[in-house]
């Protein structure tokens, strides 16, 4: 049963990923990306991390993808005749080379390491989001604060970049802003 679910989620994610990079219409690409993200949330559930699966659905599929679709519809792009790069065969060849190298390295790896303390029994005693919260606000509190400041910077940067520039024939607004 686990293998069936894993096969389904993995196959659909890979197919959706390939569709995302190969479809011609940009809106279709973003819908394929949505499929990919939802099935990846399924893979997270198979890995016993339900909280992360929910965050994946809410933040990725609910917020980031909507942002992409919003910008796509704002710009109203035409579907192009040539949607791939001119020298794409060369790029695909180089990418396959890197992929084979990656596989060789992965096949040599023992996939071992020091075991931690958060065994499934420990997590089941509390629950998953509680365990994540305890870890986040004790060991990773500095990282949490840094991510908060990063998000503030990203918000300010996005607003400053996307703001409509002031008209040059109205110098009063800029002068009052300076003085």
């Amino acid at each position, binding site marked *: 049963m686990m293998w069936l679910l894993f096969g389904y989620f993995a196959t659909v994610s890979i197919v959706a990923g390939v569709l995302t*990079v190969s479809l011609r219409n*940009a809106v279709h690409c973003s819908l394929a990306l949505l499929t990919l993200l939802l099935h990846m949330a399924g893979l997270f559930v198979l890995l016993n991390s339900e*909280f*992360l699966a929910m965050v994946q659905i809410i933040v990725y599929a609910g917020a980031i993808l909507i942002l*992409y679709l919003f910008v796509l519809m704002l710009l109203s792009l035409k579907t192009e005749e040539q949607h*791939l790069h001119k020298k794409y065969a060369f790029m695909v060849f180089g990418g396959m080379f890197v992929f084979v190298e990656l596989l060789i390295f992965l096949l040599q790896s023992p996939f071992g*390491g020091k*075991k*931690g303390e*958060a065994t499934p029994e420990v997590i089941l005693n509390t629950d998953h989001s509680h365990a994540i919260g305890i870890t986040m606000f004790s060991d990773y509190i500095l990282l949490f604060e840094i991510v908060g400041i990063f998000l503030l910077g990203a918000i300010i940067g996005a607003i400053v970049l996307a703001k409509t520039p002031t008209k040059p024939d109205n110098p009063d607004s800029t002068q009052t802003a300076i003085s």
Partner: protein
Amino acid sequence: MIPLSAYVFVSAVLFMTGLMGVLIRRNFIIVLMSVEIMLNAANINLVAFSHYLDSMAGQLAALFIIAIAAGEAAVGLAIIIVVFRGKMATNVDEINILKW
């Protein structure tokens, strides 16, 4: 029980798909989507190792990666809007003012 290597294989294939997308697509928005695919592949890897090695750290890292991806998407799309307003182009090979 599914072995860890199966998850790592899925993650490697998805990562290469995203890398190919960054390399071969001309549309800037699709390039950003391919970057999201690569971040997700890294997430699968982190969560799988976190599950198989009984540690919470990988899931925390995946959570922070999701936050970083949200910021990256916001700033990247703002840059796309600015470039589109000035040049009416979203193809990465037409945006070459900084090239020389």
